[in-house]
């Protein structure tokens, strides 16, 4: 079975889906002749033509607005936002419009569109090439939000997103693009949206996380073995809808919950996970629900010492594991 990186998985998925379904088009800045700044669509314009691989003007609101219009008129567009930090002008068209098309027309119109957003830090991206933007989308009824961290999950979830009849935001962590590698079957498969996955079984602590932090958490869990601590790592994979069932099952079993997130903690996905655990696992908890995240400053500084101080790391996660295990 071939081993691919996340960006390769993304590229292969888009390619095979665009071959399979001619209504899928890709639009965004530099996605055509440049092949995308991360090479996500390398070679696409040669294969699919300029009609289906569109280099758009530098205008995020209309990248998503035009994609929405095309989606309600029979296409299945992929809108690529070059960096998550630039998505803000498109919030109106995504949160205000696309998310509510089916609901606001009582099902007469639907918006089968996918928005791919490279995000996240630890890449010396400074304040404007490092942001995590999931919270606004994950809060919005009518949207689905996925954040695959592995190549296998990337292919499976992107396939589902492209075949979904409702808007899906796909968050791809930039640092995983080339650094995360793993097996990806050649045959077609899909992963349902809304299903978390236990990436590592354990009995002492439930560590719930997503994105790049999944990989750091797995490393920290290995370090914890030496302390006699057995960590169960739950990869959310989908941020909306969150798979409460898997979280509850895990925490009911272990009794201790550590939520690890790269996004700043206040009013975030980790807040929601903590609430789910508090509401459903109260009598199974053997310690307080614990969150590990970066400091509450605008993510994130450019200079290396500060960036390292900001980002959670395997060592910081390991510390948190040990402290929680000791309670």
């Amino acid at each position: 079975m071939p081993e691919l990186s996340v960006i390769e998985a993304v590229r292969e998925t888009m390619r095979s889906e665009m071959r399979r379904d001619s209504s899928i088009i890709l639009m965004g800045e530099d996605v055509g002749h440049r092949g995308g700044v991360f090479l996500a669509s390398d070679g696409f314009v040669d294969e699919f033509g300029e009609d289906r691989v569109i280099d758009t003007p530098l205008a995020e609101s209309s990248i998503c607005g035009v994609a929405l219009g095309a989606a309600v008129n029979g296409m299945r567009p992929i809108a690529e936002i070059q960096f998550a930090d630039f998505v803000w002008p498109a919030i109106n068209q995504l949160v205000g419009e696309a998310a509510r098309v089916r609901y606001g027309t009582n099902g007469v119109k639907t918006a089968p569109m996918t928005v791919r957003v490279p995000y996240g830090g630890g890449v010396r991206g400074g304040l404007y090439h490092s942001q995590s933007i999931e919270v606004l989308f994950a809060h919005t009824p009518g949207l689905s939000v996925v954040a695959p961290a592995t190549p296998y999950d990337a292919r499976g979830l992107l396939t589902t997103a492209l075949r979904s009849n409702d808007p899906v935001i796909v968050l791809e962590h930039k640092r995983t693009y080339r650094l995360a590698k793993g097996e990806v079957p050649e045959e077609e498969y899909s992963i349902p949206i809304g299903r978390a996955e236990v990436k590592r079984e354990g009995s002492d602590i439930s560590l719930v996380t997503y994105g790049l932090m999944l990989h750091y958490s797995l490393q920290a869990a290995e370090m914890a073995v030496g302390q006699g601590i057995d960590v169960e790592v739950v990869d959310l994979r989908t941020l909306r809808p969150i798979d409460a069932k898997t979280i509850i099952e895990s925490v009911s079993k272990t009794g201790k919950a550590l939520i690890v997130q790269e996004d700043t903690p206040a009013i975030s996905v980790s807040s929601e996970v903590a609430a789910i655990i508090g509401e459903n696992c109260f009598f199974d908890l053997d310690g307080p629900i614990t969150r590990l995240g970066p400091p509450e400053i605008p993510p994130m500084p450019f200079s290396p010492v500060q960036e390292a101080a900001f980002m959670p790391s395997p060592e910081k996660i390991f510390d948190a594991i040990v402290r929680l295990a000791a309670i």
Partner: protein
Amino acid sequence: MAYEIVLPHVGESVTEAVISKWLKSPGDSIEKYEPLVEVITDKVNMDVPAPESGVLGEILVNEGDTVAMGAVIARMETGDSVQANSDPKPISSRIGTLVQGANVGPTGGEFTDTSLATVPTSATEVAAPKSETGSRNYSPVVTRLAAKHGIDLSTVTGSGLGGRVTKKDVLAAVESGGHTELAPVSEEDQVIEPTPIRKMIAEHMVRSVSEIPHAWSAIEVDVTGLVQWRDKNRSEFEALNGVKLTYFPIMLHVVASSLRQNPKLNSSWQDGKIVSKGQINVGVAVASASGLVVPVVNQADKADLSGITRKFTDLVSKARNNKLDVTDVQDGTFTLNNTGALGSVWGGAIINHPQAAILTTEAIVKRPVVISGPTGDSIAVRSMMNMCLSFDHRIIDGVEASEFLQSVKNGIESITADSDLK
């Protein structure tokens, strides 16, 4: 600075007071803690002190008025221009109210919506919190408070969902002095540390009483025929079976059969559902050396009388000698208690949780009884025994309780000297 004077809360059950006498008048200067007004409650008469120093302003309640605790009774001006908020009570005038009749349209204009005048508004059901709350789920605050005040949680009755011990229950236990440290113990008293079995029994009883809504019913049974039967068959039975023939196994036999006819009495309330038990396993309460135990006669409806008697005798013997093992005391679906052995003529037993009912056989007493015959009523001397049923009213209603008792009564009363009992 303006300050509101509020009628303070004085005790848990006191909610209002009558203003008896104002000791100060508007315009008077007042010192912090100086008595301002006398009030009368049904527990105590007391003076309300000034909360701050300053000048008394408007008095809002008159002598003779009944005022709720927490209501504003007067206003005052304090000396400080900027008062550090050492007593941050909300000042109602700063909270304000919603003005009725001020209407706002969707985008800012004035619009008086008449659409709901014809539409009934229904309250949406709020989903109950999801955590499973069995009675032995102690929350962190309950554990902490119990440890702090030395409360044995197994003795606290739970008022929460499913009989759970709540924070309030623990605090109530603290206040009612239900713990060993603070309750006044005089020299004449003896403090006994309960044995583990005693503790377990206590916990079990508390659980049963707090979780199961008990109701009771009783019936009189004419056991004259039974007594005659026993007298007649006793020696043969004991010779054949090697064990003494007492009334109890016969009752058990009849009860087991009646349970088969009345399955609701042989069920259990579990997690909001009624579980009707397939087997009839009758527990019998036995006083052992170490305490009350309830060994179980399994499948009591499938054994014959000699089988039941042998089994029962064997269990009692084991119980008395502390030789029961775990399998002897588990899986009971109903309990039968011979309180009559000690002379009791009536009992309200506590159901053996999680069963649905418990039945006692009271003392057999010779009584003058009215017998109705073809020629009219007459008085006869009959051996009479009461049977008292406690039942779980979630599962069983009076009708079913009565039907069961009637069935048992008929079963026993149908026994005559010539009956052939197996």
